[in-house]
C-alpha cells in the first residue's frame, strides 16, 4: 500500500465518520413530521409534500435565545400529485434538483413571543439563492419530543422557480407549512 492510497483511505474514513456524525445529528422524526408546499394554479390550491428532509432543532424552553434550527430538504422529493408533474418540477426551470439537490434553512435568531409562540429568523437557500426569512411558529410538547408548527410564504420568482410563462396560471406566492417533531436531545 503506497503512502497516497493510505492517505486516501484515511481521508475517506474520516469523511465517512463525519457524515455518520452529521446524520446522527438529525433529531427530526420524519415519520411524525410534515413539510408541505401549497401552490395555487388558477385558483386551485394544491398541497404538495416534500417526502424527504432531515435536520436538527435545539430547543430549551428555559433558554430560547440559545435555540437553533437547521433543516435540509431533498428538492427531488416534492410530490405534486401526478408522477409526470413531480418529475417536471425537478427540471432546470423549476428546482433543478440535479444541480441543487437540497434546499436548506439555517436559523440565525430565535425570538420568543407570546406563550408558545416564536419567530425564527434564518437563511433559506433554494436553488442556490440565499434569502433571509422570518418564520412564525408555535411549539407544543408531544410524546417523545417537541412539535414545531408554522407556515410562511415564499415567492417563486425570488428563487427562480418556474419560468415566467407560467405566471398566468400559477401564483408566484407559495405557502410552506410544516409540522416538525424533534426528540429532545
Amino acid at each position, binding site marked *: 500500500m503506497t503512502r497516497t492510497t493510505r492517505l486516501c483511505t484515511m481521508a475517506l474514513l474520516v469523511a465517512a465518520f463525519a457524515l455518520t456524525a452529521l446524520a446522527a445529528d438529525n433529531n427530526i422524526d420524519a415519520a411524525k413530521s410534515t413539510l408541505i408546499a401549497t401552490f395555487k*394554479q*388558477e*385558483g*386551485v*390550491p*394544491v*398541497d*404538495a409534500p416534500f417526502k424527504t428532509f432531515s435536520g436538527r432543532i435545539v430547543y430549551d424552553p428555559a433558554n430560547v435565545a440559545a435555540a437553533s434550527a437547521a433543516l435540509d430538504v431533498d428538492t427531488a422529493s416534492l410530490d*405534486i*400529485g*401526478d408522477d*409526470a*408533474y413531480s418529475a*417536471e418540477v425537478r427540471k432546470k426551470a423549476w428546482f433543478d434538483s440535479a444541480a441543487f439537490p437540497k434546499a436548506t434553512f439555517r436559523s440565525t435568531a430565535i425570538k420568543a413571543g407570546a406563550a408558545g409562540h416564536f419567530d425564527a429568523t434564518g437563511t433559506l437557500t433554494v436553488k442556490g439563492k440565499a434569502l433571509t426569512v422570518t418564520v412564525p411558529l408555535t411549539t407544543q410538547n408531544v410524546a417523545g419530543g417537541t412539535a414545531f408548527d408554522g407556515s410562511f410564504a415564499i415567492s417563486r420568482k425570488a428563487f427562480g422557480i418556474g419560468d415566467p*410563462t*407560467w405566471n*398566468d*396560471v*400559477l401564483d408566484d406566492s407559495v405557502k410552506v407549512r410544516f409540522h416538525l417533531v424533534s426528540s429532545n436531545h
Partner: protein
Amino acid sequence: MNEQHIGIAVRQRIAITRAPEHYTRTAVALHWTIAGLVICGFTLGWVMTELAISPLKLRMYNWHKWIGITVLSLAAVRGIWRLTHTAPALLPMPGWQRISAHGLHGLLYVIMFLQPLSGWAYSNAVGYPIVYLGLVPLPNLVSKDKALAHTLLEVHETVAWILAVAVALHALAALKHHFMDRDGTLKRMLSWRSSRT
C-alpha cells in the same frame, strides 16, 4: 256516481297519462346543451392528455373540469325534469329497436352522472381540489390516494370510450330514423315549437 261521471273520470285519466307528442323546450335545450358540452369535454380530454406539460395543458385541464361540473349540474336538472315531465313515447318501431333505444338512453343518463363524478374524484385522489370556474371551491369526494387515483383514471378513460360509442350509436340511430325510416324521431328533438315549455 252515474255512467256519465265515470266517463269523464276515465277521459281525464287518459288525458293525464297519455304521453305528449313533443319534447318540452326545456328538455330540448338541455339535450343539445349537454350534447355540445359533452363533445367539447371529450375532445378537450383527448387533446390535453396528449400535450406535453405546459401552462396551456393546465388551463385545458381546468376547462375540462369546469365542463364536467356543468354537465353534472345540468344532468341533475335534466334528471329531475325527466322524472316530473312525461317524455313523448317512442314512435312505432320493431321491438329490438325499442329495447335498444331505451337501454341506450338509460346508459347515456348513467354516464352523464358517472363521467363527471369519476373525473372529480380522480382529480381529488391526485390531490387537486376542484374550484369551479376558478371561483367556487367544491368539496373533495375522496382524499389524496395514489392507488385510488390510478383506478379512477382507468374508470374515467374507459367510461369516456363507452360514452363515445354510445353517443355515436345514438346519433346514427337518430339519422337512420330521419333518413331511412323517415319518421319524426330526430325532428321532434330539433323542434322548438312545442306548445308546452
